[in-house]
């Protein structure tokens, strides 16, 4: 397969270019307009996302017969896999912008920067989903990390937010450094940064005795540390509860869905393309090692979520646990595992963002993120409470909600590989998770609030809520969503 040269590549790169252009437009508009209350920059960002989506769909039509297109001398790649993740990330960003519009905690003085950064981080995530070169992978990761640090600390008046940003930077810097070290080791051994050739090169030098298996193991472990940090897998998850709790709620929602999805995109491409070959896997049982990481991640996430009283923090731990579920599919290196991840990510996008949207609404109306603030919500705002119950039970994995079908797909893939123990741990984790999700439901439905006045929300709120709730009910029941993964190949 021929790689396209720089200029030729630009047309295929239009979704990314559009994001950058609109980020610039947002900044310039923000400089021009006088009215600080104006929401125009948010709407410009949304238009930018819309244009980028159209561009994605057009570039997708260039891909014929699932044949990937290699751009910029093999630095990045346009294939069904990248397109899938780009659409997913775009939807998550759009939702984040809509949440931000409704969130009352954000500083109105810095709107231009905020939305420009959101577009920039999306741009970085697009690159994470499509990079096929070690150098490009690192640049993509750093673009995302640096912008995320700022976004996490965006509540300038809140010490918690600043603390979150600081923790995020400290952990992030260590993880990036470790990863860069791993990448350079790998580059040194393979003599190439191209993910497509790396495994053959490594296999060759291993066979010739040029390097030892141990050094390959160390390099890959270091790289995994960087990726593990992004998807908040054990033992690199420590930052996430504090960051998720301190960051503005829309950003927390964004990090827990988009950042995780991008991390998984990178993980999958790196592992499946770069190291899915049996010759590398021969000496080291990666499946087993990563299966243990996955089991630990979901167990730690779920157990730590049990005592939480702050819903935002609870959802942070829950999202660590979901990272663990997703990791089950990722470690298998099978088409079923990949399909399960794609399906689960779609479901997770809707149910998790939906849950965070309710957190935004309650923070606005009741001024709290604690579970106590959800007391009696069923009588104060029945539709919001109903939607939240749907999201939470879907996160638990109760049929007929989409979360169940997502988990079913994952466990099916895991058991298909004979990893019964992992499936059992995952399933028992789901039972544990019911307890803490149900605590919120209990507060909403079984308890009564001191303040029994009804809460009123705008029509737009309910519309946005149903955008998340309706798919959470129906995705699992419709055959269409199961066929999506057939169209995505990872070569």
């Amino acid at each position, binding site marked *: 397969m021929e790689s396209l040269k720089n200029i030729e590549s630009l047309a295929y790169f239009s979704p990314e270019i559009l994001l950058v252009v609109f980020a610039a437009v947002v900044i310039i508009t923000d400089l021009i307009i006088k009215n600080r209350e104006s929401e125009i920059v948010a709407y410009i960002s949304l238009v930018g996302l819309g244009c980028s989506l159209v561009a994605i769909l057009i570039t997708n039509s260039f891909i014929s017969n699932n044949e990937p297109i290699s751009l910029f001398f093999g630095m990045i790649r346009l294939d069904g896999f990248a397109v899938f993740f780009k659409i997913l990330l775009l939807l998550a960003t759009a939702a984040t912008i809509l949440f931000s519009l409704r969130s009352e905690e954000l500083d109105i003085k810095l709107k231009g920067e905020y939305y420009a950064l959101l577009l920039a981080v999306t741009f970085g995530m697009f690159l994470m989903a499509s990079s096929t070169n070690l150098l490009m992978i690192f640049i993509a990761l750093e673009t995302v990390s640096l912008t995320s640090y700022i976004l996490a600390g965006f509540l300038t008046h809140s010490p918690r937010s600043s603390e979150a940003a600081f923790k995020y930077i400290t952990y992030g810097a260590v993880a990036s450094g470790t990863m860069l070290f791993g990448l350079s080791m790998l580059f040194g051994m393979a003599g190439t940064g191209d993910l497509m050739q790396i495994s053959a090169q490594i296999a060759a030098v291993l066979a010739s005795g040029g390097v030892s298996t141990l050094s390959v193991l160390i390099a890959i472990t270091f790289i995994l540390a960087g990726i593990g940090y992004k998807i908040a897998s054990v033992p690199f998850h420590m930052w996430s509860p504090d960051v998720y709790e301190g960051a503005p709620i829309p950003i927390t929602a964004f990090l827990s869905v988009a950042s995780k999805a991008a991390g998984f995109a990178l993980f999958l491409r790196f592992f499946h393309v770069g190291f899915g070959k049996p010759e590398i896997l021969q000496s080291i049982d990666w499946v087993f090692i990563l299966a243990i990481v996955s089991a630990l991640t979901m167990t730690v996430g779920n157990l730590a979520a049990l005592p939480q009283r702050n819903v935002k923090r609870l959802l942070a731990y829950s999202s660590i646990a979901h990272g663990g579920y997703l990791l089950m599919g990722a470690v298998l290196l099978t088409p079923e595992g990949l*399909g399960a991840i794609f399906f689960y990510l779609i479901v997770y996008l809707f149910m998790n963002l939906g849950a965070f949207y309710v957190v935004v609404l309650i923070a606005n109306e009741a001024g709290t993120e604690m579970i106590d603030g959800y007391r009696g919500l*069923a*009588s104060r705002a*029945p539709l919001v409470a109903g939607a939240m119950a749907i999201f939470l*039970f879907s996160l638990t994995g*109760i*049929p*007929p909600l989409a979360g*169940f079908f997502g988990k*079913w797909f994952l*466990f*099916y893939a895991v*058991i*298909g590989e004979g990893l*019964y123990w992992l*499936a*059992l741990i995952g*399933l*028992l984790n*789901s*039972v544990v998770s*019911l*307890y803490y999700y*149900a605590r919120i439901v*209990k507060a909403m*439905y*079984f308890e009564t609030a001191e303040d029994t006045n009804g809460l009123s929300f705008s029509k737009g709120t309910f519309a946005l809520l149903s955008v998340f709730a309706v798919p959470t009910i129906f995705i699992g029941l419709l*055959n269409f969503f*199961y*066929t999506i993964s*057939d169209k995505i190949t990872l070569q």
Partner: protein
Amino acid sequence: MLLSLMIFVPLLGMIVVLLLPRESDELIKRVTLGFTLIPLIIAAYLFINYERSIFGIQYPHGPVDWITAFNIKYYIGIDGLSVTLILLTALLGPICVLASWRNIEKGLKAYMALFLLLETGMLGFFASLDLFLFFVFFELTLLPMYFLIGVWGGPRREYAAIKFFLYTLFGSVLMLVAMIAVYLNSNVINGVAEGVRTFDILTLISLAATPGHALADPGFQMWVFLGFFIGFAVKVPIFPFHTWLPDAHVEAPTAISVILAGVLLKMGTYGIVRVNMAMFPEGLAIFTNGVGIVGNSLALLGFINIVYGSLCALAQTDFKKLVAYSSIGHMGFVILGLAAGNSEGINGAILQMFNHGVISAMLFLLVGVLYDRAHHREINGFGGIATKMPVYTGITTLAFMASLGLPGLSGFVGEALSLLGAFQEFELITILSTIGIVVGAAYFLWTLQRVFLGQLNPKYEDLPEINKREILTLVPLGILTIVLGIWPNFALDMFSESVTNLVNVLEAI
């Protein structure tokens, strides 16, 4: 189509109820009643028109492709066993709506909507012929039940609701693993995977009987048998998974207790017959072959349920808790009969499932009637009620007698057949199990004495008699207990062909 209509009419009803204005309580109740009467009419039609002499699935709908990636199909149909339980479910639907007519004080609309969703789940479960669909319907009952107990229950409702949910979910995850294992092995013959995998229950049953097929392997059958069994055992509930039941029953509102005892427990035993026994006879044989502890384990579990449940019931002073523990005891007879694996045992067990559904529903309704008047259920707090509520006392006596197994009433036939079957296989265990019947007579008669006879407690001088609506909920059930007591073939004829077939499969092992 008729069957699908029956299953999804309550779901449609749920949507209609949700669209009604919140204040119009009377309208909501009537609409809900209407939407539960339609399944009853269809179920009665199916029951009457079911061709009794033919073994096999009747009134099928499907298989229609649903999730093609996993060859999951929408496939429903009925045989004699399922149509009997569908009739029970559909009958209890309107009865429960009537029983909720006056005593649901808040959120009536949500209550009725959830109840209708629950009914769809139950009806769908009994009709499913695709294992995946079967599981989804099984789990569909969880959410409404959780809310119905948790929102409208008694003082400890929150605890009872989450306990019910956690226990059942724990059981069903094991079932899920077993289900996936069955699916993955459904196309493996002699170690070679060929063709498509399937969830079709009927196909799976025949595959599991094919020599050389992965599903027919006794070791494999044992593990998946255990996975499914624990899932269903939590639901039945079988000792030691029973502790959620007394809590759930005591806290649940009357109508929900009725559904819980009348239908939800039967989902467990129905699952054991449909999946564990029909699909994994080799696995079943390991636990029922009469050799050692393991070979007697299923019968022993039945025995423990009978004796332990009855003894616990004897110790209760809360009327509802007493009935709840008596349920555990009576479900023990079902397990014992099924463990026997012969024609009498299985016929008796299935009949007992239906009878227990009817009788325990009556008992819970009766407890509810008393509770609505006195606002407590302390058995020792009453006395001499018979003078004030003669009709109520009469109906209660009928239900008690039916439940304790008085010949001539339905409870006797099911238990007698179960014991008759079990005696042929497990003599000692069966003899010991009859202790449960004696204890059962003791606690019911003792309760009768404490609540209805003796000096009238002066507090209850003006206790109003049972009203027409309440009588209306009890009469159909009372008639059934008498009819089935005298003419058990009314129900036995329905499933005897299916049972004969199942027994042939079991005896071939």
